[in-house]
């Protein structure tokens, strides 16, 4: 097989400059702009550029500890996510394991739970007031600290929370597998294990690295999990250190916060650079898609049951704990027939007008963000491929940064950027559109990464042949590039929607009267100590999202193959 493509010369000559310009524009607007504004706040003083406060900041013990903790938890969490997500992706895409679709479906749910909800659910599950453990007499005695507090718990929950990212990314890679390689190996008599180890896994490498990088970056920027599990044990990551810094609210607070954000940005860039190391070689094939499934034989059901048990432990049990809490009048009350109440649901749904409004707001803001990014992802990723390897990776890295920064920092950047009226559109502040723009900035990486991985595997021969046959640029885009990258674009859109739907930290500063989001409501209930009501909202959210996914599932026949990650 000829490897004609060296990175940087994408053979499609279709509108060669338009995508490149679009890509640069996207990077500038969505990433460079907010980051530049933050750098200005961090480093520019009255007397010009000044690095000394940043260096002083770095010398502090608390900052250094937080840097180590951030690297540690994000990396270990990403590896754990890989360990959880990979077997699921392989079993579901490549084998005849029963109940594949159900498992794929359920595996997406952790991503739709706000991180602080996941953390709360697990704490409820394992703490002294655990109704479930209590039933078996296993609940820790009152006064026992929660076993999840601290480093181990944070890593565990990062692994669970980000396993769907790994699953979706790998699944997208498996649907674009060069089928001819696999089938050739099998025809030559290679055993399934051998095919997996020598053909499939090496071919999946760019996807593995993309998944690991996304999970790592997600961990670096995560706030909800270290906030609930780390702060009580005095275990700070950069994201929670920033939050604590904000509390001091003196005149210098913004520049202090911006400095810590720059440190986060550097860490995220390091993670992204490591990704670049692995991405050197990609290979091409003519026939793509899932090869014939491997038969697991005797192991069909054991594999399926093991998968279901894992999902049960990491998803169903905490959800049960969450629902249990939503059914008692106050957190800490034991659930029984006497204490069972729907009052929390009545309160949030019927008495508080803001909940329904927040559902609608979150739904259309995250839906719009997902749609816009899905449509932009292909041209932007295509445009980025016009650049030589190194600048291209740098641009990708820039696009990833807003996702790695804690949401509250991105929100501050947005306020600084959009508060003053802009020509033609006026001030976006106090409108829902500033939240939409912040979502586009924050989640663009989730949309572009999978598409880029897919584009990297489209054989240049395909487009070259089409060009030789006289197909114009637009035609090649529509008939070759788009169909082959559509599953990845759709996977990206689903990731964006689900991440934005429960997002809290960005909208916490950007919402205004009547533009509240679900995360804002949830956080405000938590902060007021109303855990039972917060659990009710979380339970409703899960129900709504499951319903949505079921509707999508019904529509699956009309969507391109491989678009829904669980089918």
């Amino acid at each position, binding site marked *: 097989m000829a490897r004609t493509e060296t990175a940087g010369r994408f053979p499609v000559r279709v509108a060669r400059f338009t995508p490149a310009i679009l890509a640069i524009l996207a990077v500038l607007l969505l990433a460079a702009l907010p980051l530049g504004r933050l750098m200005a*706040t961090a480093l520019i003083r009255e007397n010009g550029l000044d690095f000394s406060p940043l260096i002083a900041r770095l010398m502090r013990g*608390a900052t250094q500890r937080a840097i180590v903790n951030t690297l540690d938890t994000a990396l270990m969490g990403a590896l754990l996510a890989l360990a959880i997500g990979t077997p699921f992706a392989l079993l579901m895409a490549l084998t005849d394991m029963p109940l594949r679709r159900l498992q794929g479906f359920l595996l997406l749910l952790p991503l739709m739970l706000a991180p602080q909800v996941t953390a709360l659910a697990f*704490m*409820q599950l394992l*703490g*002294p*007031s655990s109704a479930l453990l209590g039933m078996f007499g296993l609940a820790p005695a*009152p*006064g*026992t*600290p*929660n076993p999840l507090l601290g480093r181990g718990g944070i890593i565990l929950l990062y692994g669970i929370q980000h396993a769907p990212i790994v699953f979706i990314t790998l699944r997208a890679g498996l649907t674009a597998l060069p089928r001819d390689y696999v089938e050739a190996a099998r025809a030559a008599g290679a055993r399934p294990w051998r095919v997996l180890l020598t053909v499939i896994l090496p071919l999946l490498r760019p996807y593995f690295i993309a998944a690991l990088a996304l999970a790592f970056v997600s961990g670096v920027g995560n706030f909800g999990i270290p906030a*609930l599990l780390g*702060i*009580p*044990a*005095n275990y700070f990551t950069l994201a929670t250190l920033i*939050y*604590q810094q*904000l*509390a*001091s*609210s*003196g*005149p210098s*607070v*913004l520049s202090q*916060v911006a400095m810590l954000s720059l440190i986060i940005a550097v860490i995220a860039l390091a993670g992204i650079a490591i990704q670049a190391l692995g991405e050197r070689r990609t290979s091409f094939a003519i026939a793509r898609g899932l090869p014939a499934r491997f038969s697991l034989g005797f192991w069909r059901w054991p594999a399926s049951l093991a998968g279901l048990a894992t999902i049960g432990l990491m998803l169903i049990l905490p959800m049960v704990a969450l629902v249990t809490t939503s059914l*008692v*009048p*106050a*957190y*800490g*009350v034991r659930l029984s027939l006497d*204490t069972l109440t729907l009052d929390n649901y009545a309160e949030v749904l019927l008495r*508080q007008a*803001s909940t329904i409004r927040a559902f609608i707001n979150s739904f259309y803001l995250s839906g719009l963000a997902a749609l816009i990014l899905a449509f932009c992802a292909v041209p932007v990723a295509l445009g980025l491929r016009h650049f030589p390897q190194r600048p291209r990776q740098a641009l990708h890295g820039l696009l990833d940064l807003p996702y790695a920064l804690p949401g*509250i920092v991105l929100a*501050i950047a947005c*306020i*600084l950027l959009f*508060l*003053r009226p802009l020509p033609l559109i006026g*001030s976006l*502040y*106090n409108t829902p559109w500033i939240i939409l723009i912040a979502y586009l900035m924050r989640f663009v990486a989730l949309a572009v990464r999978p598409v880029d991985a897919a584009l990297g595997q489209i054989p240049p021969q395909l487009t070259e042949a089409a060009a030789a046959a006289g197909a114009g640029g637009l035609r090649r885009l529509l008939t070759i590039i788009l169909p082959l990258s559509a599953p990845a674009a759709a996977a990206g859109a689903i990731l964006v929607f689900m991440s934005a739907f429960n997002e809290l930290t960005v909208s*916490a*500063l950007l*919402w*205004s*009267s009547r533009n509240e989001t679900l995360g804002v*409501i949830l956080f*405000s*209930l*938590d*902060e*007021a*100590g*109303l*855990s039972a009501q917060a659990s009710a909202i979380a339970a409703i959210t899960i129900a709504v999202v499951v319903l949505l996914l079921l509707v999508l599932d019904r529509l699956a026949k009309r969507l391109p193959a491989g678009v829904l990650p669980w089918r």
Partner: protein
Amino acid sequence: MRSLLVAGLMLATTLTSAMAQEGKLVLYTSQPQTDAQQTADAFMAKYPGITVEWVRDGTPQIMAKFRSELEAGAPQADVLLIADVVTMEGLKAEGLLLNYPEADLTGYPEGLHDEDGAYFSTKLITTGIVYNTAATMIPTSWEDLTKPEAKDQVAMPSPLSSGAAMIHTVTLTDNLPEGWDYYSALASNGAQASGGNGAILTAVSGGEKLYGMIVDYMPIREAAKGAPVKFVFPTEGVSAVTEPVAILQSAQNPDNAKLFVDFILSEDGQKLAASQGYIPAREGVALPEGYPDRSEIHLLSYDAAAALANDQDNKDRFSDIFGQ
């Protein structure tokens, strides 16, 4: 019941609204969602011509929002209604608050409000002790938290992440005979300082900790719903934050802002606070259910200006003791 009361208040205030004003009012508050909505609704019922646009968030977030707007050169808020006076002192020192010395302060004890009229106390949110009903030792004094029975069982909000918690810390160290040694004793008894009041409530009602330092209204409210917690006003007395209201120097609607301050301080505004479960700052307005008589609540003294001046020292001191 509460909604009936609110409705009644609204009706009453509508009938007495003499000078109807127009325009809008932008309120930044750290009140809980429901309370913020009720406060805005009650004010709008009294002044139907004024539209209140309110944003609520925790004090750190709302201040970050305000600071960002300030840095971008267009602060939006007219009125701030936030948890603690130290933040207000800081804003006052920076010249960001508008003095309103003409405010009507009948019914308020001397010394409760800022003497220049830069900010006004609206309620008393005291900090006392909460315990889980599974606990064997029932605390009555702050000193009980340093006893062996409370070893590793005490949770409290961190003064490093909450201004209100800092006020509590300063009040206790100023008033308890052993001063900062009290906090050293807490630290060596394994007390945990982190997060906000909501997290303390969750930890204690969930049984992860048996004792906590916490604001009064949360455990009183949850205990009424059946949660396994009880609130104690310790014998030495309690600290209090006063949820001050202030008009910003940069207010676009200063007249409406003054009306809002008047409303919050009025008897009706104070009854609203009581109906929401808080101790009203104005004397003569009855306390909500679940509280002892006003005369039984002993407030410890607190010097806001000194606390602001020593803020960094206090933070450093606390960090040293708790190794944070």
